[in-house]
């Protein structure tokens, strides 16, 4: 019963945070690559292709294939194929496993879509999206769902999910076992309850 109350409280907290969708972070650079990765980025891949506008000399599309591995100031990303459309302001990573890491968030899925302007990350595809977020307390919240959207803000990431959602709270790796490190079984979230908890005005990013 105590566990159920706690799960509802957590779901409420996340739903309220999601309802207060933050405005996109300001001050982003003019180069979409810098907006995505920051000014330091190392990329390894089998093949990279960049298309330019011959008139302006500006890069328009970047396609990267074959064991793509990116380590950057803002995020780390591994996938099979990556496309960055500078004109449409979108980055799409696909593969057998797309592995994403940004500050306190780790994500895995089959397809990752990042909207450069709004800083929304959509996790979809196969394998089923799984996102782990480490909170300031050290506690890790793991979300598994058919579609997960992360909205990036200055100090926090808001996470929204849709479809067969499961939410797990994992103990902090550094927390003493005697207190809260006892492993709790995954608690399945009732989708009906989640729907009622959500404000109808919530933008799910879909």
């Amino acid at each position, binding site marked *: 019963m105590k566990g159920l109350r706690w799960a509802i409280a957590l779901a409420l907290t996340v739903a309220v945070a999601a309802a207060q969708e933050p405005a996109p972070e300001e001050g982003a*650079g*003019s*180069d*979409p*690559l*810098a907006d995505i*990765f920051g*000014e*330091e*980025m*190392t*990329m*390894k*891949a*089998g*093949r*990279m*292709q*960049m*298309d*330019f*506008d*011959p*008139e*302006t*000399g*500006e*890069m328009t599309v970047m396609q990267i294939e074959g064991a793509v591995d990116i380590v950057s100031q803002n995020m780390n990303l591994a996938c099979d194929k990556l496309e960055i459309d*500078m004109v449409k302001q979108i980055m799409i990573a696909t593969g057998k496993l797309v592995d994403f890491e940004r500050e306190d968030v780790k994500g895995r899925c089959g397809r990752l879509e990042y909207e450069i302007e709004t800083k929304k990350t959509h996790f979809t595809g196969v394998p089923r999206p799984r996102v782990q977020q480490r909170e300031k307390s050290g506690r890790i919240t793991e979300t598994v769902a058919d579609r997960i959207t992360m909205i990036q803000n200055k100090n926090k990431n808001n996470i929204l999910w849709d479809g067969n959602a499961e939410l797990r709270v994992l103990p902090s790796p550094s927390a003493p076992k005697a207190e809260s490190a006892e492993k709790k079984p995954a608690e399945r979230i009732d989708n009906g309850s989640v729907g009622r908890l959500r404000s109808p005005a919530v933008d799910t990013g879909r």
Partner: protein
Amino acid sequence: MTVVTSEGRLSYRIRAGAGALEEESRRIELGGPEVEIYDAAGEVKDRITGREGSAWPVELVGLDADGVEKRSVRYDWAVRGDVRFASSQGYALEAPQIQFNRADYALWSDGGVRFRLPTGRGLALEGTAERFIAQLDGSTGGIKRWEVFGEARLVSSKAEQAP
């Protein structure tokens, strides 16, 4: 030895320590100590240097505005030996050899290429690759498409930095 060819906007000049023209094939062989091919239209813009080079004629067939077949001869070229390419657009290459293929209007190279490629938005991608192909635009001479093959590593950095 200096060879000057004029092909519309992409006229260029070749300078080399020695040269030989084979009459039948019209192939030009260029010798060191330094071979230089650069834009001959006014100021030096795009410049490629190396230890030796070759230029050979290629017959191109196309249709003019009235649909009449038009044939023209253009030169492909290759420069070998510590080749450095510096473009007026800001991209730069270092490779054992760089070749220009006029049929698909592409610069390409195999083996240990170092490159710097400005994104045109204030940053540049720098890296190394086993092979690259740069497809150029026929009218502006600018890059349309850039492909890098092999295990390449890219680092974004300020465009001013040399490769």
